C-alpha cells in the first residue's frame, strides 16, 4: 500500500474539523451579517459609517494578516486564544465583512413597491422584513452566499499556520515526515474539492427552491 494512504484516517478527521468550522462560522457570520446589514441600511448614521469601515478593513487587509493579528497579536497583550478559538474568531470576523455586503445588496434588490404594498396592508416593518423582503432578497443572495461558504472553506487551509489540525495541517506534517508532497497534496486537494462540490450542490438546490416562483 502506498505510504500516502496511511494518511486517509487523519485526513478524514481533519476534513470533519474543517466542515464543522465552516458550518459554525457560516451560521455565526450569517446571523451577525444580517444584523450588521440592517444596521448598515437602517441604523443611526454613526453605526452605518462604523459598519462601512469594518467592511472596508476586512476586505482590504490580507486574510493571513487578520489571522496572525488575532492569534499572535493578541497574545502579545496577554490575550491568548487556542488555535480553534482564534480560527473561529477570525472566520466569523472575516465572514461578517463579506456577509454584510451580500445581505445589503440582497435587501436593496427588493423593489420599493413591495415595501409600499406591504405597508399599505398594515403589515408591521418587522413582518414586512420577515414575510416580504427577506424571502425575496434570499433569491438574490443565495448564489453569492454559496460562493461565500466555499470561500470560508478555502480560508480554513490557512489555519495550519496557527496550528489548527485540519486536512491542510495533516498534509504538511505528512509531507515533512514522508517526502511524498505530490500524492499527499493531491489527496488534500481532492478532499477540499469534494466538500466544495457538495456545498455547491446544496446551494444550487436551495436556489432552485427559493426561486420557484420566478
Amino acid at each position, binding site marked *: 500500500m502506498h505510504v500516502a494512504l496511511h494518511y486517509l484516517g487523519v485526513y478524514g478527521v481533519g476534513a470533519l474539523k474543517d466542515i464543522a468550522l465552516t458550518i459554525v462560522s457560516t451560521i455565526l457570520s450569517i446571523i451577525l451579517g444580517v444584523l450588521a446589514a440592517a444596521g448598515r441600511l437602517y441604523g443611526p448614521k454613526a453605526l452605518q459609517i462604523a459598519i462601512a469601515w469594518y467592511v472596508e478593513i476586512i476586505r482590504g487587509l490580507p486574510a493571513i494578516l487578520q489571522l496572525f493579528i488575532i492569534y499572535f497579536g493578541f497574545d502579545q497583550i496577554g490575550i491568548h486564544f487556542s488555535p480553534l478559538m482564534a480560527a473561529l474568531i477570525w472566520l466569523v470576523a472575516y465572514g461578517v465583512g463579506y456577509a454584510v455586503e451580500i445581505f445589503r445588496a440582497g435587501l436593496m434588490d427588493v423593489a420599493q*413597491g*413591495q415595501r409600499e404594498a406591504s*405597508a399599505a*396592508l398594515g*403589515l408591521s416593518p418587522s413582518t414586512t422584513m420577515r*414575510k416580504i423582503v427577506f424571502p*425575496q432578497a434570499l433569491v438574490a443572495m443565495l448564489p453569492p452566499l454559496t460562493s461565500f461558504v466555499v470561500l470560508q472553506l478555502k480560508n480554513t487551509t490557512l489555519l495550519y499556520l496557527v496550528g489548527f489540525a485540519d486536512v491542510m495541517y495533516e498534509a504538511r506534517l505528512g509531507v515533512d515526515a514522508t517526502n511524498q508532497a505530490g500524492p499527499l497534496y493531491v489527496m488534500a486537494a481532492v478532499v477540499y474539492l469534494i466538500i466544495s462540490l457538495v456545498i455547491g450542490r446544496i446551494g444550487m438546490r436551495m436556489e432552485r427552491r427559493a426561486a420557484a416562483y420566478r
Partner: protein
Amino acid sequence: MSNDVVVSARNMTKRFGNTLVFKDVSLDVHKSEVVAIVGPSGAGKSTFIRCINRLHPFDEGTLELLGHRLTGGKAKVPRAVLQDIHTRVGMVFQTFNLFPHLTVIENIMLAPMEVKKMPRAEARERAMALLEMVGLPHKRDIYPKRLSGGEQQRVAICRALAMEPEIMLFDEPTSMLDPELVGEVLGAIQRLAREGMTMLLVTHEMAFAKEVADTVVIMADHEIAEMGPACEVLESPKTERAQQFLSRVLKPEQAADDFVAARTASQGGDR
C-alpha cells in the same frame, strides 16, 4: 353617498425636497362617495393619494380621516395610528405590486392572518370568496408571474379587500394594462362602487370616471384646478385649466394636432 365625511383634507401641501408636488389641496370625501382624480401626468395625483394613507408624509395642512387627525410637518405619526389607517384604508397600485414569492391565495390571506390574526381556514375561505367575486377562483395556487396584467390587478384588489377596508384608494389601476384587459378591472371597481365602498380613484379613463364617480377632481399645475359633480366638471368645466386638460384627453386628434403644431413650431424656431 351620505353626509358623514370620512376624509377631510385641508390646505395640504407636499414637497419632495425643494420640489413642490401640490399645494393647498382641500377635499372632503363622504362615506360611499366615489371621487375620481384626473389630470395631466406629473400633477401630483399619485402623491396625493399616497399622502392620504400616509405612505408619504406631507408638509403643511391637516388631514382628518377615520377619526384621526394628522398634521403636516416632521412630527411622527404614532405607530398605532399608522397601523389603524393602513388596516382600514386599502390601496391598489398602478404596478399591481403583488408579492411574487406568494401564490395568489397566499397574497390575499397574508394580511388578514398577520395583522388581524385571522385563523388560516377562515382567511382561506374569505380569500376564495373574493376570488370568486372577480372570477379567478381557479388561479388560487398560481404565482403572480403566470397571470396576465388584468388578472394580477384583480388579485391585487382582492388582496386589499381582504382587510375589509372602509376606504379604497386606486392609483391608475388600469394604465399598465393592454386595452382589452382594462374592462375586467374596471368591472370589479364598478361593482365595489355599487356596493357602497368609499373610493378615491386616480384614472385616465374619462368615460369610466363619468360613469362611476360622484365627484371629479381635476389636478393640474400642483393644485386642484376644478372639482365638483362628475358630469358637470367633465361636460362643462368652468376653469380654463380644466377646459384645456379635458379638450386634450377627450379629443385625441385635437391633442395630436396640437402636438404636431407645437413640434413644428419649436423646430422652426430652432432653425
